[in-house]
């Protein structure tokens, strides 16, 4: 039995310890690394990490390297004098591998974001989690997302909430969702607005559940999407320039068709009194589209609105109604209304712009759904695909939780919030950014140094001031804080981003490295054995 084990061990030792295995595994490792750098160049660091550097095959190759180094040493025991350098190199490599493994298993590598003068103790690490909050029950559940490069089916369920698919990289794509119950005008349209130098797709909708809106601003041009029933009021001759809109019946009328009373209201402003269904409503269109009630207050419950087209005559506004459009032409000083056929286009009076109708739907509304894509990197920045998303099913309804947007949902009358973000670790102390300083190279705006002045609050133990800058980190209780990046807050002052690190394998990696270098010098330079030059004989 013992002999069998020894024979088996010898076979294993010979397989992993022989030089040919070393050549194969080193070559394989180098090829895989090269592939990783190209992936990094195409798709960014995170994608390369997920696909290559932290993947199972890569770990397996590294384990193969470890076995090769270990058995190459064991097979050459007992120690021989001429191999002392070799033993030191291989011992160094084994220690280096073990140190790296300790770091991989127990180390922390994250970031802490410090807004000016606000305490922070949360370190964000590079792993994703979905937080499901039940505010009524005061409960929160965290679900770790897998560290994968491609889409992954989760097949998880918690209290009737199903987690279906996780997308580590995605980009929103337009999708049309069928409308189940028609309530008033809920139409949606897609247009292309373009001229020689510029082009933009416009997706506009009246549906309340859509991710899109009914207005858009493109530079100086404002686009308003309205129910088609409003179109006749824009084209009708209307000297007062007023349009009354009935939100309930979805129709409009030019007020002159009714018997309008015009008078001077508050502050000399024009006041209109219009009779609807036997009731007289008063409007001050230059102040608000809402009518006034008996107490002369704005009546927000009224189904009627009034607005003045004159408000839209001095700047660039276009009103689109699905298959019609209207705008004010400054040259003729008239409102122009034009029909637009599907795939047809109309000329607009601004900088040669044209408007083309690409799609018009009454039966469905547009929404943005995440679709998996490999991220795209350009000039060191990921420009596409940096959104993560997880598909959730609640009460038979499926929706996406995206990394940028937390969303809330009702389940049996209870509100549930979903938030997809980075996993975090809470420190037992707080850091406050007192000041962030950035110096520039003289006469330029190129940064020369970043510096964070922080206060560390240790609870009952008091506080201490620290100065963190490039190559000068703060070390506190096994954690090291490094100046990494910065950002500008909406209020103006700069905030700081520190990278935070805890590395229990550091000592072993340093020791292994030292042995590796010393062993290499010993192995390559202290053994002086050369092939003699042909034609030269030893004395």
């Amino acid at each position: 039995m013992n002999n069998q084990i020894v024979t088996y061990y010898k076979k294993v030792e010979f397989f992993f310890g022989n030089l040919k295995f070393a050549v194969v595994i080193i070559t394989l490792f180098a090829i895989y690394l090269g592939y990783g750098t190209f992936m990094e160049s195409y798709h960014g660091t995170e994608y390369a990490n997920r696909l290559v550097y932290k993947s199972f095959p890569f770990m397996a190759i590294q384990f193969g390297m470890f076995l090769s180094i270990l058995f190459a040493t064991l097979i050459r025991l007992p120690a021989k004098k001429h191999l002392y350098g070799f033993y030191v190199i291989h011992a160094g490599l084994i220690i280096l591998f073990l140190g790296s493994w300790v770091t991989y298993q127990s180390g922390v590598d994250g970031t802490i974001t410090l807004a000016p003068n606000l305490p922070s103790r949360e370190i964000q690490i590079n792993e994703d989690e979905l937080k499901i909050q039940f505010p009524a029950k005061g409960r929160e559940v965290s679900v770790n997302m897998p560290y994968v490069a491609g889409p992954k089916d989760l097949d998880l369920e918690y209290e009737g909430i199903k987690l279906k698919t996780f997308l580590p990289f995605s980009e929103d794509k337009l999708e049309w969702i069928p409308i189940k119950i028609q309530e008033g005008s809920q139409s949606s349209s897609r247009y292309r607005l373009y001229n020689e130098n510029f082009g933009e797709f416009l997706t506009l909708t009246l549906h309340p559940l859509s991710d899109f809106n009914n207005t858009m601003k493109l530079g100086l041009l404002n686009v308003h999407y309205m129910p088609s029933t409003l179109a006749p009021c824009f084209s009708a001759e209307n000297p007062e320039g007023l349009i009354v809109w009935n939100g309930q019946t979805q129709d409009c009328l030019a007020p002159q068709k009714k018997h309008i009373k015009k008078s001077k209201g508050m502050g000399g402003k024009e006041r209109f009194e219009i009779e609807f269904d036997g009731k007289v409503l008063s409007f001050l269109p230059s102040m608000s589209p809402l009518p006034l009630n008996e107490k002369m207050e704005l009546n927000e419950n009224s189904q009627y609105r009034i607005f003045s087209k004159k408000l839209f005559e001095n700047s660039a506004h276009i009103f689109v109604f699905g298959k019609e459009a209207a705008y004010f032409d400054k040259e003729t000083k008239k409102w122009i209304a034009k029909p637009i056929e599907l795939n047809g286009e109309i000329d607009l009076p601004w900088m040669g712009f044209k408007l083309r109708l690409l799609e018009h739907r009454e039966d469905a509304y547009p929404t943005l759904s995440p679709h998996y894509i490999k991220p795209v990197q350009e000039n060191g920045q990921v420009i596409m695909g940096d959104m993560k998303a997880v598909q959730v099913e609640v009460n038979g309804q499926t929706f996406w939780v995206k990394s940028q947007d937390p969303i809330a949902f009702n389940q049996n009358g209870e509100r549930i919030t979903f938030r997809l973000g980075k996993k975090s670790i809470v420190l037992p102390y707080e850091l406050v950014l007192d000041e962030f300083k950035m110096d520039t190279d003289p006469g330029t705006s190129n940064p020369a140094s970043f510096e964070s002045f922080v206060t560390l609050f240790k609870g009952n133990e008091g506080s201490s001031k620290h100065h963190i800058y490039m190559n000068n980190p703060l070390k506190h209780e096994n954690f090291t804080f490094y100046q990494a990046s910065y950002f500008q807050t909406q209020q103006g002052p700069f905030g700081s981003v520190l990278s935070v690190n805890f590395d229990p394998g550091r000592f072993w990696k340093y020791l292994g490295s030292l042995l590796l270098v010393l062993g290499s010098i010993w192995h390559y330079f202290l053994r002086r054995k050369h092939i003699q030059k042909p034609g030269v004989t030893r004395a």
Partner: protein
Amino acid sequence: MLKTFLSLLLLISFSAQAQMDLCNPDLEKQPVQAGGRVKPLYVLAEETIKFVTGDSKVDNLSATDAFCKLTLKAFGMPLNLPIKVKVDHVDVRKFLGMDENSTSIAVDTLIGKVGEIETELAQLKENNSYKKELNRVNQRLRTYGAVVEARAWTVPVQKGDKLDFVPIAEFLTETRMKEAKEKSDNPVKYALNEARELYTRVQGDDYLLELKYFKWNLFLWAMLSAIMAILLLFGLKNKTPGLIFTALSIILQVISMTMRVMISGRAPVTNMYETVMFSGFGALIISCIITLYRKEIIFLLAGLAYNVLSLMMMRFAHGMLDAGISPLVPVLRDNFWLSTHVTTIILSYAALALSWILANAILIRSRFFEVSSKEYRYQADLIYSSIKFGVVLLAAGIILGGVWADYSWGRFWGWDPKETWSLIVLLIYMAILHGRYTSWIPAHRFVALVAGAFMSVMMAWFGVNYILASGLHSYGFSEGGAIFLGSFFAVQIAILLIGTIKKKA
């Protein structure tokens, strides 16, 4: 408004003779602040004119003279210099309506196309080589604009208790000119001299070392000495004259690099130009050490050959290597780690370059001449000697990089493309060295593999910056670095094919 005022003022106060006096060689010493540093006007003028036109002279005028005369345009001087803006990309030439073979376009013609260029740039989504070149042409035009609007040339002034720099358009104020006119017939020249004296009084005249550095051009003399050394070592039985020229080349390079270190205040390994410079020098020094250790002159010849190649690249590969001295990004501002990690890596590349030269030499020699198997094995052993230096230095350099990264960013290893490619290089050479002890890699394969393995060094050194950084879809093959690297790979593969194909009996 300011321009009009200045034009009037200067036309009144400037005599034609005074204009000529202003643009004189003495102006080269004027301190200017540009790109985050203070340097002599000569250096700024050379950099600017070369960037805009691709040449250091304009119509037989020196760069400083041309720069000065162009600046005077802002003050209404009727000057008509034939400035032509360099355009490298064939498609950009087509877009600008140029002849495909013409390499530059008249600046006035280009100014008329600014709108078209801006529109084209706004429309281009992919950041490919065409867009990059169009951006560069736009940048050249803006640089020209800064010169002729007198914004590029800055002058030191006292602002409170601080020394500051202002564009010359702001410097030549009415008050300053009036005061200067009372003291000199040429008030502009007088005011500029005063500004220079002010600067040297406060900061000293150390900045003038850069003028000497660029004017002396010692690297050119070092290259000529190295070429002489090769010829003499090959041609004469007595090796002393060759060794003297080798020493001369080393001395000239040491002086020039020391000057560069004194100007920049850091180790000379912070950009591609400097790494090429340091690797060439390092290879020569390592070759001297191995020559002494192995008593074999072929190492010195290989070191000199690589040194000459490096010096030639520095002199002629302007599109890829920028000789200018610029401030460093914040994270690299640590002289200790720069001087240890980067120099160790570059020295390892230098040692591996020696093995590459020796391997290619024996490949070609064995293809066209008779080389005995004993001689072949001996040559392989010589190659192994330089690889030993290379791998030990490379391993040390990678580890030093890990320690620096740990010290600065808190991580020993992060799979950054530059560090990963350094590791790939080490792994490739380690695979070859391990394979040498198996039946897989006999002497002839070892030589071919070493010659080919240097392509991984070039990838780590240039490829990461010029190919991986630009993104693979754009490839950037019209850009200097990528063209160079592509050509290098093509030539190396051709040598490998020629060298390894068996000769007919």
